[in-house]
């Protein structure tokens, strides 16, 4: 990845110092205005009436259930997507089969489909007016407007993250090491766990972190399928919009601050990872 290459810092441009400084300065200003200012505004709004009001609003049952729901959804959707992502990347890079290009396109589908459309598709598929939905209702299984629907919508939207991170790394690594392991008598599983997985572990972790950030923040698809039952199917992003619409600014921004904080934790983990293991990352990626 380019950022890792940059970290090795051999100047690749011949522009004069001034040009470089102006360009870097412009980018910094842009980042400040576009990324930092809104983030600070969120925290400022949350604390507009003091710490007590902010913390008090987070202790309300609605806010607590939203936080719990979001974390639970992420705790289910992210590991499942990690497993699916590894399986998909493995199948695509280590084997040749018909329809491989089609499978790659399919994995990318959630990136190109609007989340709202994804949510609507689930409602159409499992809603009361579909035959599947009617069957589910007859067997007392709740999908749409309930917890399973929210998990499904989140999984759909975050599906590509892990696979997309893994595929380029695995393509670069080729199959030679696995083939060697197999020739030496390792079983398929053993080759996977002792050769393939260690080779991609940083890319995998990176994909999981991105996937997690997105899973917690997903709004569109979840909004369609949640039914907005207060304290029951309202994830943090949904609850934030709701509170804002109810003129409860402090509560809305406090919850938004928690969500932003969770995202920042994820990003920090990612950066730590890159910093601690820059050599390893670079090695596995340029292998």
């Amino acid at each position: 990845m380019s950022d890792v290459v940059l970290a090795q810092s051999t100047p690749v441009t011949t522009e004069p110092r001034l040009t470089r400084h102006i360009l870097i300065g412009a980018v910094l200003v842009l980042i400040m205005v576009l990324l930092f200012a809104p983030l600070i505004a969120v925290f400022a709004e949350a604390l507009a009436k003091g710490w007590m009001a902010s913390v008090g609003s987070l202790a309300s049952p609605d806010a607590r259930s939203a936080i719990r729901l979001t974390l639970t959804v992420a705790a289910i959707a992210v590991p499942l997507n990690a497993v699916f992502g590894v399986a998909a990347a493995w199948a695509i890079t280590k084997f040749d089969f018909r329809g491989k290009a089609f499978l790659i396109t399919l994995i990318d589908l959630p990136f190109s489909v609007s989340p709202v459309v994804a949510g609507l598709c689930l409602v159409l598929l499992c809603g009361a007016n579909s035959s599947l939905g009617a069957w589910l209702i007859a067997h007392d299984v709740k999908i749409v407007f309930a917890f399973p629907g929210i998990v499904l919508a989140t999984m759909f939207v975050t599906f590509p993250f892990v696979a997309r991170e893994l595929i380029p790394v695995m393509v670069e690594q080729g199959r030679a090491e696995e083939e060697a392991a197999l020739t030496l008598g390792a079983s398929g599983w053993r080759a996977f766990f002792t050769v393939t997985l260690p080779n991609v572990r940083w890319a995998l972790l990176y994909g999981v972190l991105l996937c997690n950030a997105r899973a917690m923040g997903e709004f569109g698809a979840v909004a369609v399928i949640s039914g907005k039952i207060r304290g029951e199917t309202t994830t943090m992003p949904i609850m934030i919009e709701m509170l804002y619409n109810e003129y409860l600014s402090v509560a809305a921004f406090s919850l938004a601050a928690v969500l932003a904080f969770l995202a920042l934790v994820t990003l920090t983990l990612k950066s730590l990872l890159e910093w601690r293991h820059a050599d390893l990352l670079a090695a596995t990626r340029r292998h």
Partner: protein
Amino acid sequence: MAFGGTAPAHAQDKVEILNVSYDPTRELYRDYNELFAKWWESQGHGTVTMQQSHGGSGGQARAVIDGLDAQVVTLALSADIDAIAQKTGKIPADWQSKLPHNASPYTSTIVFLVRKGNPKGIHDWGDLVKDGVQVVTPNPKTSGGARWNFLAAWAWAEAQPGGTEETAKAFVHDLYTHVPVLDSGARGSTTTFTQRGVGDVLLAWENEAYLAIIELGADKFEIVVPSVSMLAEPPVALVEGNIHSPGQKAVAEAYLEHLYSPEAQAIAWKHYYRAWHTSAADPKDVARFPDINRVSISHFGGWAEAQPRFFGDGGVFDQIYSGN
């Protein structure tokens, strides 16, 4: 039942019901749910938990049709409840005769919210189409309030000297060319107008307009009452097809009937709805409403007729809005 004694709801039973409602009723039902839960327990029943869902009225009806498990619906207009009744059969066709006052425990009307000092000089519907005036109103396809807004504008235009269906249609067409953005629900439009500062006038539920002034400051906005508006009757209904136990049925029925109790009516008055009974209401809550000439939906032949004619596929709204 060998031992007889079929008590409808045991004291220890915990019942949950979901009320799927429209946008501006959040504060009303927050208070009413508390009142009802206390009253229900004081009657010797078990504890009851009310869950709430709010959004644009049409969208909420759509969600119930798609399977949202609401035991009661409290929506912005009867056409949305009719839609649930027709598409799912979970509500009987004659639902509106099951509770008093067309199953509408409270009424409201449509007023204008303008910026303090009324800088654009907006006093009646005709002023909305003056040059440079921007009007904020939600999408009639998804919002109940927006449909009342539309019909109020139509009723005013028709009542003008020489007014006909043609002039009314021309007026609403003109009106919607002044609308920069159509939000999906009433509350979205209110935040667009008040917090994002878009537009010169918000066509709003009366209760929504009062609430915006209370929440955001009387120094920022004021209410303008037009010469003609609608008698908006937001109705309520039991979704019989979503009742899962006798206990739940008892709670859901009582929940709707108790809306007509003097105490609940007082809450409606307090939240700026024009309710029916004033006996328990704070007289100040009742006195603050100005008299408005309110046109009933029956003027348009009821919602069963008005809904397809104005807001159905290819209806009047589609004709005038695609022309923008």
